[in-house]
């Protein structure tokens, strides 16, 4: 028999698996193996924390978080680390070249929920990229939030992403910025130590804090536990998960993490939702 009525959804929409073609407007090398691509030509609407599926034609597709300003709908920004065949091909694209675009997908940062709270934004390595749109929004609507703290950890001084911007933000009086690196030569004047060491010194009130974390999973786990130990509610510690994604819409199954699809139900999740699984092996 034909479809059951309740299986029908809305009208015939375009195939969500087919990318549209956009063009690279600008390419900027950030740090070793990391470039930022700007795409122009269209009105791009996204929520901070969402991602797009980017296609390097003839090579493949990868899920890449949007790293630009949500207020600038004319320019779509992604920051990409060249680690595999697809991301390398994407990172090699030059201005004028076509790129395939699907999205935006996923559930982003809980900025509405953060209103009225102190906000701790904690990024590790390239994890700063998906958090940057949230920072732009937080700063654009500064009056809606309590204290805002940006804590950033990287492997070495050479691996600090968006360094100019971090330094500019550091000059602001309404934003506390602290950075640390895991390894440095003697000529580095900044902090050396793991990112968790920054948390205890930052000024925020755990009881009224919402935290947004993005970085390596191990780092997020340690940071989430440290924040929780200080008194930040698990429901208000949000982290952006990473898993293999092929479709971004819950059809391919690759990004399953226990009961959730990271693409469809995340990538941003409250720690309270993941806690039971994130400490288990090979979920």
């Amino acid at each position, binding site marked *: 028999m034909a479809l059951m009525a309740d299986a029908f959804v809305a009208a*015939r929409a375009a*195939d969500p698996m087919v990318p549209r073609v956009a063009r690279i407007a600008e390419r900027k090398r950030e740090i070793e193996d990391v470039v930022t691509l700007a795409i122009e030509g269209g009105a791009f609407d996204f929520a901070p924390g969402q991602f797009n599926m980017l296609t390097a034609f003839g090579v493949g597709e990868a899920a890449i978080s949007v790293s630009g300003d949500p207020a600038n709908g004319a320019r779509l920004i992604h920051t990409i680390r060249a680690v595999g065949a697809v991301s390398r091909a994407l990172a090699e694209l030059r201005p004028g070249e076509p790129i395939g675009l699907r999205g935006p997908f996923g559930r982003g940062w809980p900025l509405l929920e953060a209103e009225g709270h102190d906000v701790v934004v904690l990024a590790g390595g390239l994890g700063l990229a998906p958090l940057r749109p949230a920072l732009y929004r937080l700063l654009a609507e500064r009056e809606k939030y309590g204290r805002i703290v940006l804590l950033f950890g990287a492997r070495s001084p050479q691996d600090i992403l968006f360094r100019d911007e971090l330094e500019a933000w550091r000059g602001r009086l309404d934003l506390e910025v602290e950075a640390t690196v895991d390894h440095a030569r003697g000529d580095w004047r900044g902090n050396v130590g793991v990112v968790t060491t920054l948390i205890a010194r930052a000024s925020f009130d755990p009881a009224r804090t919402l935290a947004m974390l993005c970085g390596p999973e191990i780092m997020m786990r340690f940071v989430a536990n440290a924040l929780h130990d200080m008194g930040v509610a698990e429901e208000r510690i949000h982290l952006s998960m990473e898993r293999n994604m092929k479709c971004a819409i819950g059809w391919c199954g690759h990004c399953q993490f226990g009961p959730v699809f990271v693409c469809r139900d995340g990538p941003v999740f409250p720690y309270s939702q993941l806690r039971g699984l994130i400490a288990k092996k*090979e979920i």
Partner: protein
Amino acid sequence: MTEARSIVDAAGIEALLEALRGQGYSLIGPTVRDEAIVYDEIATLNDLPRGVGDEQEGGHYRLTRRNDEALFGYVVGPQSWKKLLHPPMLRLWSARREGDELRVEAEPEAREKFAFIGARSCELHAIAIQDRVFLGGPYVDPHYRARREDVFVVAVNCGVAGGACFCVSMDTGPKATFGFDLALTEIVAGRSFLVEAGTEAGSALVETLPHRAATKAEIEEAEAILARTAENMGRSLEAGDVRQLLARNLEHPRWDEVASRCLACTNCTMVCPTCFCASVEDTSDLAGLESARSRRWDSCFTLDFSYMHGGSVRQSVKSRYRQWMTHKLSTWRDQFGTSGCVGCGRCIVWCPVGIDITEEARAIRESDGQKGAT
């Protein structure tokens, strides 16, 4: 829709196939190929496996000769209708560079109208489950929908239970209760079929066939057959709380035990009528002018499935088996609100080492809460 049940004979079935073909349907039904029941194009009644039975057990499948002329005297074969609605390989789009321009063209949707002849109740449940995956969310798969929306289903209520069947446990059979246009119960092998219409289209079609009203005795006979099938399930699974059972036993030592037998061959996922996982791959011509993306079935049993830069999340076979089984019986409910298992038993039969999902669930239940090496 007529509530009355009708009786058709073999000629009536032949006329049914003829009528559906006349309405432009491609007839897909059970037929014998490579010593198995497969769903393939059929033309006439003669393509159906007359007098064929089957023997199914863990890691074991044989066709047998029945001592009657039954048309539907076997249970499900290795393949399900999944291959028609969610094809193993499907091109999604192609792109072509023309000078400075690059054009992407979506693959046109299939226009074929299928009539599924002989779909079993568990399979109708499986189709409904995949409907939720591809049609039930905020995004709709146009390829799945194009293949799915015009399907005419002639269901068959199971007259025998297979050695690995456990639809009764999963509440998915053996009697088809929804999702069909017509449902047949073979009450006299090869000769007499009780017909029930599930849709207006189904009952209208019955009117065009040589048929007569079923007697009370015939209706009772059909019910008795189904009751017998239900009583003879080869397997059983305590499904009521299996979701919670598995969710709280992710570190149970049984996962290590089953992993020591599992070959990670992916057979269970290929034969499963609900498994939907797929991967995509891109191809391009040597000149770099044309490229295309295809979707093909994938399996959570492969190492690559969970690959992220730096390595695969699920390195061990144990974690992959656990992913599959917890998905089927536990997390599927979180994701889609239904079980991911319909109790068809294919994963048991087609496992080369005979791993049995019902036995695995039972083993965990028997030592609920034990923790193993993690």
